[in-house]
């Protein structure tokens, strides 16, 4: 024991690249599970040493195909073990993996494929192969395409297509012939090498390739690991796009650092079932997933018998009263403790179980503001849900909520090693080891985003409260001014609107105008259910959105928000005066949302200019026809005569 600490420190200090981390786990956690994938009806598993072998073989195979130090490797597909392994394989060879969003259409991929000079792409299946074949002419550099799942590809005879099985076989031979090759390649890696390129979806302009080093992601991963005490016995369910920085941090960087097990679901449709089977200890989901879950819980409970429903609501009230306090270690009366313990047996425990959250130690949400009620619900039933804050450029690592210091309207305290400053215009500036190295081939953009003091300009507006917790208001550039001069933070208002389960999306306008107006998207599930219970018949989204009962419902929500805004002097002037319910759902396929489901404000404003005009022109209604793209690529049109409503506003400071 005495000699051990020293040995481990020397080793730990040398664990500065991901391939070295993998090699380390292959030795120390050799037979512990590294990865699982639901396939063929059961969870197929790989231990760390098996993963290391597979990765080595894959790296050798890639080398045989001519993949060299500094090359970039495109990775396209759902979360599959072999796709994660390809990342590490590329890193071993000193290359840079570039994961792409798998649900993007072929033309959207062209930009990245060209921008990153992709020569070799590893893709999941026939679907992705077909996309790449479609755009191959446009990408002259693309030399090899490797596919994971050979299904349906039997008759594809193109010489540049390779099954991963062949490449692995080839690599194994290579590995046996030159056993030192991999060791040497790993040794050649440096911690300041770029380890990954993640393209920012970019709410404006073309995507930019964010280059992050091993050091940056390892620092970010280590900070998170320390705050949340992540350990090798943990499990995570990896189901979010591999191209998203969060997945890279949790499922790749932290998994390799802490040595916990990454579990890949069977398919996108079975995520909930797979989640229940695995029972992850570490879980991430965007707020809308938590929101959908809660809606489902409530809908399913509606069908329960009277007695059970009564019991459920009783104990949920108990949880609301004291659950979150218990989790945060605040004092709670003995009677409430007893009731909560009972509730834990009859409601919370079983509920966590059916949601697949029984074993969760930490759950995270980020990417959008989460409603306080929603947040509170999960914490009150004993799930340690937290928020964090970060960008692709900061390895998704800026602020974390430490245990027992959870505030519902903040994103937590600066994470270990991170410095935060608030600029005069309210913009949040951050500095630390996790900052990007550069934007790929975009020195101009790199220079623009990092100021002279070495701080990265996040583009978000916010402030630190008295306890040092960061609160986000809006995108800095979106914070505008009303014609009257008052500050206008559209996101802030929109989030308040979106906290109502009936409102799925909201877009507010008001910059340089004399009042605030809003577009609303209703939530099809929640409002549909609401309508059914009232016996309101409807045919599809457009019809439902136009019902006067629905308008009535939404108007109530908007007025409640107005009342809330009215109470706060800072934003009282930005109450919503007029609104309309859009005739179609905003959709990434129609470019109205980003792939991460953020509103493309400018695009929407342009596309629906006629509606904005009607809002500010005082018209009672407006006809509009819009083209929509269906999932299979077909196009169609939806048209409707949209009603516009005036809303009651409240005097400043009035309740």
């Amino acid at each position, binding site marked *: 024991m005495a000699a051990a600490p020293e040995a481990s420190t020397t080793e730990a200090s040398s664990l500065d690249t991901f391939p070295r981390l993998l090699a380390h786990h292959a030795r120390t956690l050799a037979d512990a599970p590294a990865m699982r994938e639901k396939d063929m009806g059961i*969870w197929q598993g790989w231990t760390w040493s098996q993963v290391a072998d597979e990765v080595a073989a894959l790296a050798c195979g890639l080398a045989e195909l001519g993949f060299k130090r500094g090359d970039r490797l495109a990775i396209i597909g759902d979360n599959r073990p072999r796709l994660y392994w390809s990342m590490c394989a590329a890193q071993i060879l000193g290359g840079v993996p570039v994961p792409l969003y798998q649900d993007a259409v072929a033309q959207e991929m062209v930009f990245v494929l060209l921008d990153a000079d992709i020569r070799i792409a590893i893709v999941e299946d026939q679907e992705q192969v077909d996309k790449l074949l479609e755009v191959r002419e446009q990408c002259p550099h693309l030399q090899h395409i490797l596919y994971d799942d050979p299904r349906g590809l039997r008759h594809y005879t193109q010489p540049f297509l390779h099954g991963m099985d062949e490449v692995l076989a080839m690599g194994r031979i290579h590995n046996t012939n030159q056993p030192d090759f991999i060791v040497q390649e790993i040794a050649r890696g440096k911690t300041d090498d770029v380890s990954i390129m993640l393209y920012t979806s970019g709410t404006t302009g073309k995507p930019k390739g964010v280059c992050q080093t091993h050091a940056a992601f390892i620092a970010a991963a280590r900070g998170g690991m320390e705050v949340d005490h992540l350990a090798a016995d943990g499990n995570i369910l990896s189901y979010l796009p591999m191209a998203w920085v969060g997945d890279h941090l949790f499922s790749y960087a932290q998994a390799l650092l802490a040595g916990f097990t990454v579990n890949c679901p069977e398919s996108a449709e079975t995520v909930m079932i797979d989640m229940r089977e695995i029972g992850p200890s570490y879980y991430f989901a965007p707020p809308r997933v938590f929101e959908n879950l809660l809606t489902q819980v409530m809908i399913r409970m509606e069908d329960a018998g009277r007695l059970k429903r009564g019991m459920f609501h009783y104990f949920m009230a108990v949880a609301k009263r004291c659950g979150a306090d218990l989790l945060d270690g605040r004092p709670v009366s003995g009677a409430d403790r007893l009731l909560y313990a009972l509730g834990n047996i009859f409601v919370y425990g079983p*509920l966590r179980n059916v949601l697949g959250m029984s074993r969760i130690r930490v759950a995270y949400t980020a990417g959008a503001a989460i409603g306080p009620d929603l947040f509170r619900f999960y914490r009150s039933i004993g799930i340690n849900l937290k928020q964090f804050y970060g960008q692709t450029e900061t390895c998704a690592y800026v602020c974390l909520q430490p245990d027992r210091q959870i505030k519902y309207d903040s994103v937590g305290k600066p994470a270990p090693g991170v410095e935060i400053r608030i600029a005069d215009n309210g913009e949040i500036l951050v500095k630390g080891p996790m900052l990007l190295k550069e934007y790929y081939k975009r020195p101009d953009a790199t220079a623009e985003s990092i100021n002279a003091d070495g701080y990265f300009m996040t583009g978000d507006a916010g402030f630190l409260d008295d306890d040092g917790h960061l609160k986000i208001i809006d995108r800095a550039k979106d914070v505008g001014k009303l014609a009257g001069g008052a500050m206008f933070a559209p996101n802030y208002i929109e989030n308040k609107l979106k906290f109502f389960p009936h409102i799925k999306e909201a877009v507010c306008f008001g910059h340089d105008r004399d009042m605030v107006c809003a577009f609303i998207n209703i939530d099809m599930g929640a409002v549909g259910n609401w309508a059914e219970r009232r016996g309101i018949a409807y045919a599809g989204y457009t019809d439902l959105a136009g019902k006067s009962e629905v308008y009535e419902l939404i108007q109530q929500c908007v007025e409640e928000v107005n009342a809330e805004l009215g109470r706060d002097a800072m934003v009282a002037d930005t109450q919503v005066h007029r609104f309309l319910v859009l005739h179609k759902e905003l959709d990434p396929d129609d470019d109205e949302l980003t792939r991460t489901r953020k509103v493309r404000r400018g695009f929407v404003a342009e596309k629906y200019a006629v509606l904005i005009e009607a809002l500010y022109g005082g018209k009672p209604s407006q006809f509009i026809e819009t083209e929509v793209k269906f999932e299979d690529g077909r196009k169609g049109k939806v048209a409707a005569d949209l009603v516009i409503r005036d809303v009651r506003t409240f005097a400043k400071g009035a309740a």
Partner: protein
Amino acid sequence: MFYRETGQFKTSYAADQQIFPIRQDRIGVVLLLIAAFVVMPLAASNYWFNAILIPFLIFSLAAIGLNILTGYAGQLSLGSAAFMAVGAYAAYNFQVRVEGMPILVSFMLAGLTSAGVGILFGLPSLRIKGFYLAVATLAAQFFIVWCLTKFPYLSNNSSSGVISVPGIEILGIKFDAPQERYLLVLAIVALLALVAKNMVRSTTGRAWMAVRDMDVAAEVIGIRLMRTKLLAFAISSFYCGVAGALYAFCYLGSVEPDGFSLDLSFKILFMIIVGGVGSILGSFLGAAFILLLPIFLDIFLPWLSALLQLPFDGATVSHIQLMVFGALIMFFLIVEPHGLARLWQIGKEKLRLWPFPH
């Protein structure tokens, strides 16, 4: 509610295909086995052993036998009692005629003898189906009981076929006391129940169910109807035969052929209807229910008559019993054709999804 399945994932087909894939169920079964093997022998009275536990286990075994034939293979039989009789008399004959025959071997041979007779009476199933076959099994019922009465050789020349079995001794250990006999029966029944479960969850069982559900399709995928049906008759009769041997040796001690009447066959049929057609668990539940119901009525009806001040004599009680039996059978067939086992399953589903209703 008590199920916490989150995190119980399966990494091998072996784990996925085990009899109780849910951990809480496995714990429950272990507790049940401990209760049956350890707690009961210490806690139960002789009345419990003799009047409830031993007959319960024996009838469960017979019900498993009938369930294999009727519930799994879909061949209705009304002659289970006759196959029990074959088992009882075969075991008796092996015991008294072969010097030094171990009792367990006798039970085994009794089962095999019964299986042989079962195959014989199963032969018509190759050409006839449904009611015709059900009626044909009545032939077995009447013929076998008649044979046992009329051929003195079969009862070792005792008058009118009554046999009194010798005591049980295994490897020098006597099984005389009620709890000793209980443990013997329990061990045999538990083992055979496991064997039955193994069969019904493998190719054999699937072939039976395939023949039951859609015989033409079964034939087309290569299942041999003849072999499958006869195997079901043989296994079913084996179980009934062993149950019969236990019935004679461990329960009554002295039996006569008329004790294995059509009424007994019906009783076993009722057990599987109430318990659950096509369920091993159901066989136990049904046996318990049908066995406990008269005991319950014996207690409840006098109480009721006192309450309502109606004169219920013994005959009336037995008439009410008949009516309750009949009504129950109709009730289950109408309301829950898959019996108590299905109710159990529904309840379990509810608990697994708790607090959600479905």
